[in-house]
């Protein structure tokens, strides 16, 4: 029992140290938040899949705030490229409007400009 308590304490100490400091290690790594329009969990998957292009470390889209949090390597990509990739899949992303044809192909529950609401 004693060993397991020690192990527990040790693990706890390791994991309690802030890991977010990783992001600041290099100035090439940028964190930005952009607005992306969408409705539901199906949109979330589509948006995030589109955001994960080469150089993107992390993409988290929040359905409620309509915000996409991005972490990327600025040597390998830039915000505009990421936004274009999302817009090509039919979602307004930051300054770039969605590809109109792709928007029309979205499932009806993802049609954010036409009052779709879904509780996925």
């Amino acid at each position, binding site marked *: 029992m004693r060993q*397991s308590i020690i*192990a*527990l304490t040790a*693990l*706890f100490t390791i*994991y*309690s140290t802030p*890991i*977010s400091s*990783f*992001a600041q290690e290099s100035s090439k790594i940028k964190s930005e938040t952009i607005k992306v329009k969408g409705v*539901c*969990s*199906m949109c979330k998957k589509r948006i995030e*899949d589109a955001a*994960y292009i080469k150089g993107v*470390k*992390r993409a988290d889209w*929040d*359905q*409620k*705030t309509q915000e996409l949090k991005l*972490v990327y390597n600025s040597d390998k990509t830039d915000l505009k490229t990421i936004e274009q990739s999302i817009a090509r899949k039919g979602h307004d992303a930051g300054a770039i409007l969605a590809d109109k044809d792709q928007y029309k192909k979205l*499932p009806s*529950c993802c049609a954010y400009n036409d009052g779709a*609401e*879904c*509780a*996925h």
Partner: protein
Amino acid sequence: MHKAIPLSFVFALGLSGTVSQASAQDAVADTIVAMQTVTGHVFDAQQKDGMVGVTIHTPDNRHHQVTDENGAFTIQVPAGTSQLIFSFMGYRTETVSLTAGTTAIEVKMQEAGLKEGKELGTVEVTSRRKTTEIGLSGTMKVEKIGSGELMKAACCNLSESFETTPSVDVGFTDAVSGYKQIQMLGLAGAYTTFTRENIPDIRGLASITGLSFTPGTFVESMQLSKGTGSVVNGYEGTAGQINVEWIKPFEDKAPKWLINGYQSTQGRSEGNLVYNHNFNKHLSTSVLLHGRSDWMKVDMNNDGFLDNPRGNNFVGSNRWFYFGDRGLEIQGGIKVVNLNTIGGQTNYAEGTPQVAGNPWGYENKVNRLEGWAKIGKVFPEKPYKSMGLQLAATIHEQDNQYGARSYNGRQQSFYANYIYQTIINNTNHTVKGGASAQYDAYQETFTGTPLKRTEVVPGVFAEYAYKYLNKFNMVAGLRADYHNLFGAFLTPRLHLRYAPAENTAIRASVGRAQRTANFLTENMGLMASSRAFMINGNDISTLNNNTYPFKPEVAWNMGLNLTQKFRLNYRDGSFGVDYYFTDFTNQIVVDMEEYNKVNFYNLNGKSYSHSIHAQLDYELIRNLDVRLAYRFYDIKTQYNSGLKEKPLVAAKRAFANIGYRTRNDWKFDYTVQWIGTKRVPQRYNDHEQHVHGSDYSPSYWMMNAQINKSFKEGKYEVYLGMENIGNIMQHPLITDASNPFGNNFDASLVWGSGMGRNIYAGFRLNLK
């Protein structure tokens, strides 16, 4: 967590709220570094009055408050918070921007128009759920098993759906019936409380068979918690609680039609159909059907016995939901089950006389009817206040034939539970109180010996929940019950949670649990042997049928656990370790150590279970999830022959699961497990002499894999999988299989897989 919340969820929580459906994320509170205080008033835009009970929260949902009777509120939010969201049932949700330095705000709430009825429903529910969450969420460690996890084991019923859950061990009950049983903390499934949407489901005579009667296709999600649960759900549940949420017809994500087909190479065919219909925003219904047929004679280990009985199983259910305008919620359902199987020696035919020289046969028939209802009321002007009544009735009949031995049982049960929930001053203090009644009438016959028992247990309970700044939670509950056979008893339970840092939660629990063991049905597997059934050392036939021969089982359970979430290399992960100790004050000991006997008696000495479980979940690269787990048990019981390890339970088990999803919706899933050695009960030769040198089973590996492909955003899905890839089976599975009517026949000592490699394929259609 950022999604609209199904109405039923409110219902379930409003009524009982014991299994908190918190994802791990809620369970870990955030640190409050720099906080600012925002005060203000909320008014009705038309009537200009202050509004009580309006929910205020930050966009990330981490900080909540409710307005008081004058419409005033004070909320602590992290400095820099840019928005606050105000919601109230029947009103439009308002989002208010905060600029730097804002301390006092006024908010006018607009009543929602009728045409926005659908949105209204969503808003109402969102606010309701949060208030409930504040009080209870996270105080208990809950593993939420969502539909994604359930899909990893595309087959088929509740017992099989735990194959990818390291907290639960799944094993065959015996070598002939095909039933699988589960264990938590190394204790049999009967020590775990099974609830369907918080109403007790699998109890009594169905403790083993019942798991087969919840098809996976009906299930939306499951919540699993170890240790004693909330007193609201009763005094049972020594090892833990498993709550199952079915598909709800009124949820937007519920398909109109859900059709599933399955076929395995071991001759098992299944079909499932779920039909959901919403008549209007008030009324909805589901029809759920399941059919299973095992039509092939399968004997992969060539012992002359079918590995799995042949036969059919049908499950059908119909559910109704009604949501009124003023917080009234009513739901009800019925479920019917019919099962008819035949197994045993491959050449056995139904009704063959069971005498030496004829083939040994196994037969099983089950008929079960369940009905249940929930009536709930939330007070629209006081969303923190609710009350509910749960009602359930069950009739269960089963006939079993194990060679010359027959076991028949009939159970009639009725359950009622009334729960009232409110707050004291503010939502930091929540109280629940209520009363319950459980009635069970059992009539069993074991090869001519009748056993009869009626249990009536009325009880009252109270539970207080306290939270301090998302850092500390406490739930303290007490119930008093009166049992017609065993008298009055108290059930105290306490749960604590402390979050010392961001993404860290430490939880502790302690509680008492009591139950009446259905020692025959819970040990049905042992009937597949030549062992004589003994009660306190005397043959069961000497039993007086009017008295239950044992004391109730009483145990104390204590638990301590740590959950740590982390982000490493931009990917999320979590680590958890838990320790549980169960100490039996009394237990019905199942003693298989004597020659050709199984003896049941009250515990005389110690019986305990120590369980340590460590688990790491991490997304190694995007869409590649890895789960590693290890658990260790130390379970010992005082037998007449001494303190011994619990037989047929692996003390050590290691588990690894890798899941990968591609962007074009292929899913790959692979599970490998190592199951450690298990103690085998004392073995004897034909001359009743101990056989030495084979006290432990060998350890072994089990591997499963599955490939899924979904089309059209999940509308169609096909899967192909393989179980027991290594084709590892226990040899011999049955002791003295060639002489089933002799004194050494034993098909109940199962420590390994009774079935070999299995390949299966299936499809799912989700039609809107």
